[in-house]
């Protein structure tokens, strides 16, 4: 098992940002806001956020906002709750939330809650528990969770609970690790994790670990690095992360690195992309962080120093739940 080639990953991400004309970049143009979040979060985790021109990023984000308050995935694209969260998260990352009119963004999200408590992604009415998570997370970051009907939102999420303890997109939808992350995350922020059958869901989640050590997103599917993130965070949120083997998972993630050119892919030897680099590094940092203390150091001290620059880095993976920003803010308020 090798080490995390942190420096190469930084180079890779920076190179992707420069390659605006590649086919992948063009295909993903409409979700550049998500890409910005993934890429910038990785840089933050690696302690290299200072290589980015903050002003440029912030003004680009603001040019994606629409009159109704929501953000599009790129300039000229329609507003959608998916990109609204990414925009708010990136601004929070740079501590620049004051540049937006929080009430305007809030009104956009409030307007997307339906009678049954669910959320639509935009005016065209697609309903999905992903959007429930996004709404709750985003309003939590903006300190305006009281503006939606949280009880109804929670009730809707619970109506999507399945026989295996997991959650689907809509009632009756099959459980899926990404969807479970969203639903469990939303319930965590709403303080309603007591409604989750943690032992049943925990068993389903820990059985996502296959022989190679990687985690899949559904039974009988191939393992994928990005599920190391969804499954792992879900297991942490329900306090069952000790039910999987961390050593095996770390090995799997390290095996997915492109040690020559940087970047992390979904499975060993597949092509790398920004999305998986984010999940690989976030999952890795998370894992190293949790378990290097528990089981002794599995990676070299130097590498650790490189990744664990500031203690605040560790808050970042969970900051997608919004809560950490909230508590840090509250604490700073009460200290001044």
């Amino acid at each position, binding site marked *: 098992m090798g080490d995390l080639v942190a420096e190469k990953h930084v180079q890779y991400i920076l190179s992707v940002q420069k390659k605006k004309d590649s*086919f992948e970049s*063009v*295909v993903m*143009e*409409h979700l550049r806001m998500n890409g910005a979040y993934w890429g910038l979060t990785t840089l933050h985790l690696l302690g290299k956020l200072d290589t980015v021109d903050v002003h440029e990023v912030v003004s680009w984000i603001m040019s994606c906002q629409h009159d109704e308050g929501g953000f*599009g*995935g790129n300039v*000229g*694209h*329609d507003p959608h709750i998916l990109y609204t969260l990414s925009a708010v998260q990136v601004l929070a990352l740079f501590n620049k939330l004051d540049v937006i009119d929080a009430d305007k963004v809030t009104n956009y999200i409030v307007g997307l809650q339906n009678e049954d408590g669910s959320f639509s992604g935009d005016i*065209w009415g*697609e309903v999905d528990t992903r959007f429930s998570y996004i709404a709750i997370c985003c309003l*939590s970051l903006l300190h305006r969770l009281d503006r939606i009907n949280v009880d109804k939102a929670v009730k809707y999420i619970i109506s999507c609970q*399945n*026989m*295996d303890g997991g959650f689907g*997109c*809509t009632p*009756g*939808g*099959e*459980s899926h690790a990404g969807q479970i992350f969203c639903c469990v995350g939303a319930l*965590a*922020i*709403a*303080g*309603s*994790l*007591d409604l989750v*059958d943690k032992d*049943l869901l925990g*068993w389903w989640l820990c*059985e996502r*670990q296959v022989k190679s050590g990687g985690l899949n997103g*559904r*039974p*009988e599917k191939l393992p*994928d690095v990005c599920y190391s993130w969804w499954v792992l965070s879900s297991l*942490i*949120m*329900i*306090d*069952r*992360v*000790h*039910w999987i*083997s961390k050593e*095996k998972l770390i090995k799997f993630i390290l095996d997915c690195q492109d040690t020559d050119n940087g970047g992390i*892919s979904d499975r060993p*030897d*597949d*092509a*790398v992309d920004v999305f998986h680099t984010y999940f690989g590094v976030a999952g890795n940092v998370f894992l190293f962080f949790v378990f290097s*203390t*528990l089981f002794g150091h599995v990676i070299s001290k130097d590498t650790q120093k490189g990744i664990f620059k500031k*203690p605040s880095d*560790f808050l970042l993976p969970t900051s997608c739940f919004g*809560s*950490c920003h*909230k508590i840090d803010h509250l604490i700073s308020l009460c200290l001044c």
Partner: protein
Amino acid sequence: MHGRPRKPLKEEDESVLSAKAEKLHSLQSQFLANHQNRIYTKEALDLSAKLLEINPECYTAWNYRKLAVQHNLSESNSDSDASLFDQELKVVENALKKNFKSYGAWHHRKWVLSKGHSSIDNELRLLNDFQKADARNFHAWNYRRFVTALMKISDEDELKYTEKVIGVNFSNYSAWHNRSVLLSTLFKRKAEGFSHKEKVLQEEYKYVHSAIFTDSDDQSGWFYHLWLIDQTVKNDAPLLVSSWPSHGANITLNGNNSLHGSGLSLLNSTLSDTKTLPVILCFNQAVEGVNSSTVVVKSELLKEDLVWKPLSTNNSSTAQVWVVYLNMGNMKLQLSKTYSIEINIGHSMGILSSNGYHYGAPSQITFEVCVQTAYTEPVDGQRGKLTSWKDNDFRKIDHFEESNPAVSADHHIPTTSNWCMEAIDEEITNFQDLSDCKIRKLTLARLLIALDLLSPQHDKRKNHTEEVLKLYTELMKLDPTHSLYYKDEHSLLLLQQITSSRESLIPYCHYYKDASETNTSYVCLRLQNLSLSRMGSFENLLWVQMLDLSHNELRSIEAVTIAFKKLEKGLTVNFLTGLEAMQLLSCLNLSHNKFGSFTALGPLRLLKSLKVLNISCNELGSHSIDTRRYLCSSPLAHSEVFAWDRFEILCGSYSATKFWEAFLIFESLNLTDLNIAGNAVADENFASFIVKVLPTLKLLNDEEL
């Protein structure tokens, strides 16, 4: 990229790709210009169709097409409406051929169909094509549920469809999942042929064997089988599982109002301080609506209406454990007179489970309270004295006196039907296999637990606890990746075995000898050194006032779900109760465990009687990630009110981030003796902080303050 091999691109590939990128880029720019200028001509629409064919994920283009349909509808006559919509269906179909995981494409199709202008007859044919290509595609399955609802295809027909799919390949978790959804609906509305659950379940057991036994490594049938067991033994209605005082108990109050429960001394000083007697009701699941009309307390002692409080860590109005404090101070009790207290539960409607089921069986608890001549036990003498947990301060107990409160009450609960036992019995024969197969062993363990819980209690021959404990031990070796899962299960079962009866409890009960108070002995439940990784069976421990859990591997004291929990008369239920149920608990030893954060001690906040707490030699402060953080109701969860003002004052110059969790747990407690030594967090700063948070504290880390 998902599933794309990592290899350097050849030069010709690179030039092809770059040409493609350029073309797509130009399409996207032109499209965005059209969108912005609201141009909905045929050319503009064709361009967006071309774009979506290459890049179905471009959500704005789908939005644009919806706007175009709306725009062109208003301009056209109704004859061409249908063709307008058909055109959209065609674009979606092409896009899905490119990428059938495109959320935008599937939603566009739903949007078109919900307009009601297009025929839905084609949809199943299309779906069959897609599901043949990828039988697990959850977009297609979601769309299928949408279409079948629209076409009013019955759940029974859809059930047959899942059989068809499973017939092709049993390894289709999506189909098994959908089967559980459909069956749940059919059971719920008692559809024809589905009102006798047992017959259906028997068939289902046989059916899922095909998946489990064909390839036992294949997980497709695992969760469905567990669901069937749950369906067999589960009772939806909320029920009372235990109470304190238990039915038939005699509680002796001394002249100075301290409590003595039937031969067991109660050392609980809070109760005598406040002159209150707690009554604790423990249900099988969280309920709401416990109040003076649904729970009627009859006694000549009572003058006022009682206010029942839910014991919940997140301030909700539903809880599994409810408590009321009878105020004895207001009552003029006569010496040597016995007062009877009768509690009727659920005789009038109103107690409801969170999924809307009414309380199952009205039940009654009666117990007696009497006042004896004062024997002046200086309860306050406890304070300021070290509570020792050393072995030589404990004395073994040979037997319990009759009617002591250590056994849970006998409630009026309907018995289980025979078919449940028969079904489980038959399953056991199918899974009894000596081969080293993980799912067989795990399923067998679960089935044996279910069987034990279903069997009449007097039938001791059928107790399989030892066998199941052995199975879990084997599983830890067989499947080391998940060994801590099996260990947790092992711990829960062991605790259940220990706490299940008076006889099984005796070896763990000791008299605690307070060296200076030679007259009094207290009973301590000592569960130390059992290598427990998880704590459970709280509902059997409502009577415990002194608990020693030291030298185990506990990480938290959270509520546990035990899938099948035994009730007196054989009924089994889902169970979920945490330490907060132990309202009489006064002394708790958690030293030498693996508690990694203060949030792991969350339920302690609800223990109003707790005076002595030993959490020395744990891992508090050693871990930077707190996996309990999201479960503990805290300012992180938005449901909690946090006393920021007091926290701010107490924190002073200390690092707030370091202390807020400790503040959260200890702020509402009245501890007199706390031992926190041997934890990374416990430095001098912390000690002086905790002393301020706990003004009642007399002893810290074995030293007098």
